[in-house]
Every structure is written in structure tokens, then in C-alpha cells.
């Protein structure tokens, strides 16, 4: 539309900050995908809905019921975790001899149900929420930074730390890893793999809820946001190598920055298309992702 004006350093930094902010969310969604994928080989198409549920529940608890943020945070995460467990118990667990097609359609059905329920409960409005610690921007090398962005990055760091600790230093975590590597062998050595599947849904829903809670003050949540968040999170998961959570975190942030940069330098209208285009390109050229090894990929059945 207008002549391209010169892009200053602070502008570029601003785009990077915006990108990291949404990238952290994609990373969290991607981690959720990976947990269920590692335990079951399923891509959970309802992953984005956990994020929406988290955001909307948090809005109700803090803005309508006026509960304090820490209490709402915990209650929301627990409630969505329970929803994840319920999903596994009622829709995944009862299916004997599942085909991939049937499992895909089941998780799609769950996503439609969650979306429909959210629409019934919260309506179609966008909901806004107070920032956790005010919306006064901070200066950062000429660019500005919202306190909420720090919350988002901090939460991601904490979750990653907890993730590393859980999978490397706890018995349950090690059992889950064993299941992901070889489910039959894990079962033979006495691990209850069915329970691990349930646990993976619980953790994945919990992480999704947290992603929804921390992003809502910035993006205004509504019932329909799940699909796009899900696709982008999946993009990050594929980019990082499906099943590889550390790869997903780097890929998620990378995707966010690419998106923000293309919004600033090309067009904000095509922002969503650009991220998806990259996803497709990676799928076609290197389905094992940037950080995934193609050998590991062949072991997984699709």
C-alpha cells in the first residue's frame, strides 16, 4: 500500500518479541501433541481445544467470579487436566483394534464436542482478561515489552524444567519414556502402558490449559480459536520432529518469529498462511522435521 519505509533495529526487535510471545504458545501446544503421540501414536486433533478451554475457564474465574489469579490458575489447569483424562477414558480407551482413520475421526469428534460445549457455555463472544501484572509496557533496547510476555516466557521455561526433571528423574517419567520407545518391551517389563496413555492425556491437557491461560490476556479468547492454534502447534511439532519435545520448543519459537517477521515485513493478513505454508513445505520435503532423524521416523507407524 505505502512505500516500504526503512526498518529500524528496534522494529525488528519488536517483531522478534512478538514472535517469541506467540512462539512460546506454539511450543507448549506442540509439547502437548508430542506427549500423546509418544504414548499412543495418535495425533490428538482436540489439542487446540484444551488451550481454548484453559483460556475461557480462566476468564470466567478471574473476570466473572473475581477469584485471585493463582487460585484460578490452579483450578483451571486441574479442570482441563480432568477433561483430558475424561477424553482418554471415554473415547480412546474403549476402542479395540483401532484404525488410524477411526482414531483421527474420534479426536475430531471430541474437538467438535469441546468446541460446541464452549460455544454453548461462553457463547461466540471474544473474552478479554486482565494482564497478570499490569499492562504498563517495559523498555527493552528501544523496543517495548509487556509484563505478560515475561510471564509467558517464564512459564515456558518452568514447564520445560519440570518436563526435563519429570522424564529424567522420576520413575513415572522414565516409564513413560520407556513406553514411547517400545511399548511392547515396556509392558513386558511390567509397566502399565494403559495408565501411561491416560497420564499422557492428562499432562497434555494440563500443558494446553496453561498455554491458554497465559496467552488470553494478549489475544482475547473465543470458542473458535482451537483449530488454528492446533494446526500451528502441530506445525511446530512436525518442524521439530514429531515426538521430539526439545525440538518442538525451538521449532515453536522459530515459527512464531517467522510469522511475526512476515507480518511486519510482508503482510499481516497473510501471516497465518505463511506459517502453514512452511508447515506444508517441511511435511513434503523433510517429514522427519528439522531436528528429527529420519531413522527414528520410520520406526513409528502411521
Amino acid at each position, binding site marked *: 500500500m505505502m512505500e516500504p519505509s*526503512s526498518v529500524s533495529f528496534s522494529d525488528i526487535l519488536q517483531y522478534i518479541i*512478538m514472535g517469541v510471545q506467540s512462539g512460546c504458545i506454539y511450543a507448549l501446544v506442540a509439547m502437548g501433541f508430542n506427549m500423546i503421540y509418544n504414548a499412543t501414536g495418535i495425533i490428538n486433533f482436540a489439542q487446540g481445544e484444551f488451550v481454548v478451554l484453559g483460556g475461557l475457564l480462566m476468564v470466567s474465574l478471574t473476570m466473572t467470579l473475581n477469584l485471585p489469579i493463582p487460585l484460578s490458575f490452579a483450578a483451571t489447569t486441574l479442570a482441563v487436566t480432568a477433561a483430558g483424562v475424561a477424553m482418554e477414558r471415554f473415547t480412546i480407551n474403549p476402542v479395540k483394534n483401532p484404525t488410524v482413520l477411526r482414531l483421527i475421526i474420534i479426536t475430531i469428534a471430541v474437538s467438535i464436542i469441546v468446541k460446541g460445549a464452549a460455544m454453548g457455555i461462553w*457463547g*461466540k463472544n471474544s473474552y478479554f482478561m486482565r494482564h497478570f501484572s499490569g499492562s504498563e509496557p517495559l523498555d527493552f533496547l528501544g523496543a517495548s515489552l509487556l509484563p505478560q510476555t515475561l510471564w509467558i516466557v517464564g512459564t515456558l521455561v518452568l514447564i520445560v524444567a519440570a518436563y526435563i526433571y519429570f522424564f529424567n528423574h522420576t520413575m513415572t517419567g522414565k516409564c513413560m519414556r520407556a513406553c514411547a520407545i517400545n511399548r511392547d518391551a515396556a509392558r513386558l517389563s511390567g509397566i502399565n502402558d494403559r495408565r501411561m496413555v491416560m497420564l499422557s492425556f492428562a499432562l497434555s491437557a494440563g500443558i494446553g490449559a496453561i498455554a491458554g491461560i497465559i496467552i488470553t490476556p494478549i*489475544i482475547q479468547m473465543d470458542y473458535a480459536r482451537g483449530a488454528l492454534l492446533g494446526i500451528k502447534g502441530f506445525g511446530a511439532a512436525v518442524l521439530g520432529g514429531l515426538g521430539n519435545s526439545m525440538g518442538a520448543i525451538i521449532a515453536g519459537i522459530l515459527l512464531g518469529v517467522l510469522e511475526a517477521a512476515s507480518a511486519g515485513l510482508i503482510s499481516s493478513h497473510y501471516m497465518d498462511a505463511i506459517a502453514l505454508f512452511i508447515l506444508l513445505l517441511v511435511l513434503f520435503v523433510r517429514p522427519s522435521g528439522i531436528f528429527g532423524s529420519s531413522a527414528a521416523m520410520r520406526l513409528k507407524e502411521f
Partner: protein
Amino acid sequence: MKIRHVLTAMVAASALCLTSAAAVMAAEELHVGCILSITGKASWLGEPERNTVEMIAKQVNAAGGINGKKLVLHIEDDQGDNTQAVNAANKLIKKDKVCAIIGPSTSGTSMAIVPVVQAAKIPMISCAGAAVIVEPVAERKWVFKSPQKDSDCVKRIYDHLKTKKITQIGIITSTSGFGAAGRDQLKKIAAEYKMDIVADETYDPAATDMTAQLLKIKAAGAKALVNWSIEPAQSIVPQNMKQLKLAMPLYQSHGFGNLKYAAAAGDAAEGIIFPAGRLLAVDTVAANHPQKKVLAGYRDSYEKAFPKDKVSTFGGHAYDALWILVNAMKKAGNDPAKIRDEIEKTKFVGTAGVFKFSAADHCGLDKTAFELLTVKNGKFVVLK
């Protein structure tokens, strides 16, 4: 085998037939359709509009109806979606056989159903702001609207910018019907007021972040910004501006006339200037002003009937539209063509201003219907 297929087909057929039961209409009822965005992105328009038309229908019927006939409203929710609005218009015209339509709520949905009502020859009174809904009037024989025109809104904003001696402005508009029409008017009228639009950015109605656009506007050297949208996304612009510490004055359109939009932007909304009808600042309107009685009357009855809600200009547009229609129907009964002719002759003191419809003007309001308002301590007050 054959029998099974026939039976299967019959099951399908009976399912189809079930839907064919037609509604039976009583002779002593007048059927009016309302297409409002009760849910969805424009629910902050449609909800007060729905409340208002239901409230008026009750009042009309309690007072004996229209010439003794009961007023029956068929309210359809288009969810702010253009295609749903077209389907709703078809349903109201074909199934419910309405004699006139109130709404839709937004410019996009209104533009979408203009061809439908034109072809069906059913009068419609839109509750949306864009002037293109009723212009050119030769191609809009059956279409009227009750809110002020966006072109007049642009003129009021440019008037104010001139008094501030600002000529370099940035505009940021939503790509929805209302935003796109506003963008056209902003650009068209700029020359007349010698405004220099140095940055022209747009955003998707579902966008969540306008930082990129605002950085471009800043780089282009704009001295003031006009933000034109009807969706909640408009509240993100002041938030992002605050985040980026952009100090230029922010003007909004009359699509900002619901306190919820200001609340969504929080303290970033302070100081926003926008033209709106007098309804939002009814207490500051002089007692001898011709609209005073209507404004206070509508606000009081609305806030009494819906104690949890605050009056908004959008509910006012539905108030004006339905009363204009009811007055026309008192003379014309339920004949769509006669109703249309009566609306075109209407003079009416409403919440949006003093209407004078004519064959050349299907809006009936001019720029004096607007008052410049601003946000102060989370409330709308008249700008001094």
C-alpha cells in the same frame, strides 16, 4: 436386496417430508422479520438490538397492537456472518412471509442481503452505519437505514482534526463490511478537507495483534490515527498503541458506541475521540433539545427492562428502525409496497437524530446527528 433399498429410501423420504410442515398464519397478525447479530463477533450490537425490539413489540401489543392487529416479530440470529444473514432473509421472506425486515446489525450483513430484499420487494431498515447500504438510492428502492452515515462520521472527525491543525493522518480499518466502507469514505473525503493519509493499514476482524501495522504507521510519520471497525478487534488497537508508546491522538468511528468496547481496551481507551449519537451522553443534552425526551425515555425504559445492561447507540438504532416501521404500518397495514412508500415520507424524532426521509435520502440524517464523545475514567462524555 431390493426391499432393503426401497425401505432405506423410504426412511430417507419420510425424513425429508417431516420438514415440509408449513407454518400456519393467523389472519390478525402482522409479521415482521428481524435479522440481528445476537451472537458472534458483532454480538455487542445485536444483543441490545434484540432486547430493544422485543421491548418495543411488548409495548406495541400491550397498547392494542397496530390498528388492533398483533405485531409478531420473527427474530433470526445471523451470528455476524454474511451467509447466515442471506439464509435468514430467505427464510423470513419465503417461510415466515414477513412484510418488512429490521436489520441486519452490521454493514457487511446488510450489504449481503440488499440484493435479496430488492428482488423480493420487501422493505428493510438496516441498523448498520455504512452509507453505501442506501446509496445510490436508485438501486436501493427497498432499503433504508436508521444509524447516522459513515460519511458524516468522517466529516466530523476531519472537522475536529482541522481545529487541532493536524493534516497528516494514518488510518487503520478492519476488512469487514463496515471497515471497508469506512476506509473508502476516509479516502474519498480526505481531499475535500485537505487531509494527507500517510499510512493506510487494514486488519482482519478476527486479528489479535496490530503491532506490525502500528509500527508502519509510526514510521510513516502520522500525527493522528483513525481506527475504523465494528468488531471487538478495534479495542486491540489502543492496547497495542499503549504498548508501543505511540502518543498520537486516536479517533474511532461511531462503531465504538458500546461501553464494552472501551472496557475491553481498559485504561488504554482513555482519551479516544469518536463521533456518536447523543444517546450515550443523554444527561449532557440540553432540556429543550428536540431529542431529549426520546433519548431519556428510551434509556430509562431500556435500563429498567434490562438492569444488567447499559444503554448503547446500537439498541437505539433498532429503536428508531422499529418505530419508523410501526408508524408506517399504522398507515399501510401489511402491504410491503405501501409500507415502503410510507417510510419514504417519514419524519421522526429518534435516538440517532431527527429523521427526514425522502425519495433521495433513505437515511434521513445529516452530520449534526453526531456529537463528539471521548472516554474519561471509563465513561463516555461529550468532548469539550
